[in-house]
């Protein structure tokens, strides 16, 4: 198949963008969830 390397590069880079984006959302969500839990715990302790 001619230009197979270009097709491979397009799909690899394209899916790479979606994967990195999903990973970034998942990491930001996990970090923020940790912060929310920490804040909730400190508020409960303070009451």
């Amino acid at each position, binding site marked *: *198949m*001619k*230009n*197979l390397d*270009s*097709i491979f*590069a*397009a*799909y690899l*880079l*394209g899916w790479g*963008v*979606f994967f990195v*984006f*999903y990973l970034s*959302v*998942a990491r*930001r*969500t996990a970090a*923020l*969830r940790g*912060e*929310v839990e920490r*804040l*909730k715990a*400190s*508020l409960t302790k*303070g009451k």
Partner: protein
Amino acid sequence: MPKRVIWGAGVLLLVMAAAYASFYVAPTERTMGAIQRIFYFHAASAWAGMTAFLICFVANLQYVLGRKQKWDWIGVSAAEVGLAFTTVVLITGPIWAHPVWGIWWTWDARLTSTFVLWLLYVAYLMLRSMVEEPDRRALLSAIFGIFAFLDVPLVFGAIRWWRTQHPQPVIMGSPGSGLEPTMRKVFFFSVLAMHALMVLLVSERYRLEKLRGEFQELQREAEAG
């Protein structure tokens, strides 16, 4: 099993089926050969990205009219996802163009308006990161988002109104244009798969924004107490 996992697996299967169809079901295009198969990924991503920007535009309008936080969260979620899809379009386009046109890029109306669209939504996200006060940030970015969306009809119309290096439309184009029936089916299946992925990513990103709202609420509570 949580609903989200089932939905995510469903979307993954759908995009894998679309990739399979674009390689093994769609016929090889006569002039360009196998490289034309990038079309199913490139154009379907472009359509899904435009839909994400449309969602952002509607959410921005709703926020300006009703000032409900939910619309701000939907707006930023759809803008980020639309930007990811447009990034894919701007990467896959030149990879397809190089063997066909002999150049990676040209400043024709379609390519330029798409690049401007990408820059506008980067600016939208930068604007959000620069304003600290949540209500002010939401209003300013909503107004900017409404303005940014004005480029979407330009991107759509660029290959219809002007002569461009980019191919003329094969969907909703002039009489005589169009796709071979199997190609058309594979294309619309790819569009469906990319839209499912877009909705999944917007909903995941929305969860993050909702959590951020909860965090800010707790922070205010902590500062008051």
